[in-house]
């Protein structure tokens, strides 16, 4: 590997119930807080009409790690991350953020739960009507922060993503990479512990992709941020993910540490996806 990998033991991914504390966490030796996974999905099911999108998906993401979900188009990746991020509701199953059940949240509780996680989109989805500052400030305004605190926090965030000089620019007048940095700053505004990335680098060129991935990785390390990302790009997983799950036709067919899945894919889809990378 051309970059530093974090120490890792064998990862365990089986349907977990976070209330059942016998679940062993990968990074628990390094981080005592990781005893409860940052994100837990329990038996999620989702269908549109008669079409099954997700079938009994369970997943547990250890705190502070970067977890990749990889799969072909139509495998259900986007639906999965939209459900995990509370943008959509599953038909059945449960969702936990750090041991706290959030899948049933409504009203103010739902808004509070959403503030515990940030979301970065493939197409940035910045607010065209707002400046760079206004975009990053929005989640803080929504959370009722006072103006001086918002200004201070936005300055801090833009510094963090390297855009301190672009504060007043209209958001969509920036390059793709810069726009994604604004989106990352916006996603992290409320000090979330979790960051969801839906194909966050798919619209970017290879060099920009690398710089965005490195940024996400450094933010994750610095703030102990748990990142769940879906992607169809194997390079993305290889570059920054600690663990990976392979989603095929709405089911997780394989999961484990990136090193083990890449070295020895056990599922048919895993072999195909890994094979595509090594052969061209």
């Amino acid at each position, binding site marked *: 590997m051309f970059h530093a990998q974090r120490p890792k033991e064998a990862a365990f991914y089986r349907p977990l119930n976070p209330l059942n504390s016998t679940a062993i966490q990968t990074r628990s030796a390094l981080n005592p807080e990781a005893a409860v996974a940052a994100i837990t999905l329990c038996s999620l099911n989702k269908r549109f009409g008669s079409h099954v999108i997700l079938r009994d998906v369970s997943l547990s993401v250890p705190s502070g790690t970067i977890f990749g979900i990889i799969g072909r188009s139509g495998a259900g990746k986007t639906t999965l991350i939209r459900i995990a991020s509370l943008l959509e509701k599953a038909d059945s199953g449960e969702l936990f953020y750090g041991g706290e059940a959030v899948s049933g949240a409504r009203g103010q509780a739902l808004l509070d739960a*959403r503030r515990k996680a940030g979301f970065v989109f493939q197409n940035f989805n910045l607010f065209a009507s707002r400046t760079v500052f206004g975009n990053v400030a929005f989640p803080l305004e929504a959370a009722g922060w006072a103006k001086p605190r918002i200004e201070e926090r936005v300055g801090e965030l833009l510094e963090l993503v390297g855009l301190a000089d672009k504060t007043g620019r209209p958001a969509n007048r920036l390059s793709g990479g810069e726009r994604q940095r604004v989106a990352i700053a916006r996603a992290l505004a409320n000090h979330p512990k979790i960051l969801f990335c839906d194909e966050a680098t798919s619209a970017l060129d290879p060099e920009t992709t690398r710089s965005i991935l490195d940024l996400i990785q450094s933010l994750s390390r610095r703030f102990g941020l748990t990142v769940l990302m879906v992607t169809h790009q194997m390079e993305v997983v290889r570059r920054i993910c600690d663990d990976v799950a392979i989603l095929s036709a709405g089911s997780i067919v394989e999961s484990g540490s990136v090193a083990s899945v890449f070295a020895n894919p056990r599922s048919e889809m895993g072999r195909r996806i890994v094979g595509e990378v090594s052969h061209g």
Partner: protein
Amino acid sequence: MAEVIALVARPFWETLLMVFSSTAIAGLIGGSLGLGLHYMANDRLSGHAAQLAIVKKVADRLINTLRSFPFIILMVLVLPLSRLIVGTSLGTVAAIVPLSVAASPFVARIVEASLSEIDPGVLDAAISSGASKRRILFAILIPEALPSLVSGLTLTMITLVGYSAMAGVIGGGGLGDLAIRYGYQRFRTDIMISAVLVIIALVEGIQLCGNAITRGIRARR
């Protein structure tokens, strides 16, 4: 010339009064209706579009029905309402009532269409920020749709200039009334042409202002 100006001046103000006040009223009523329509149809926003589908359908039918009336008929139908609201069914102020009633469903459709043009991804971003629906509506959706809303409002005003010409029937006055009664029926072709020219200038002016505002907003994005 001085006579023409003297004759045109009053109807000109009457037309302006009718057009601007009914645009303002229709903007409020139709704007709220349009927001409501969009909210009901948008599952990401309301979270229960399926349950609201019936309400939406009824509202759709009502708006379509209201939009189907020829304005001249609507004006007569609304007479009791004008009497109720402004105390009289005659005159410029009374004419504002049917004009607002006619323009509201029109504005509702324009607002609905403008809002539905917004990229759903932008809405997702606002939702995932943990913002309340009200905040998303007023701090994100309306500002995002602003250029399109301004164009729509410009269109509404110009349509109302046309409708206001018919307000003479209920004594609303205005430039259209001047052109018909003073110009056409009294064989004062000069007055008729002058009135029409002023209407053309007014429409052109409204369109230019609308375009300038839209361009101004787009330039800052």
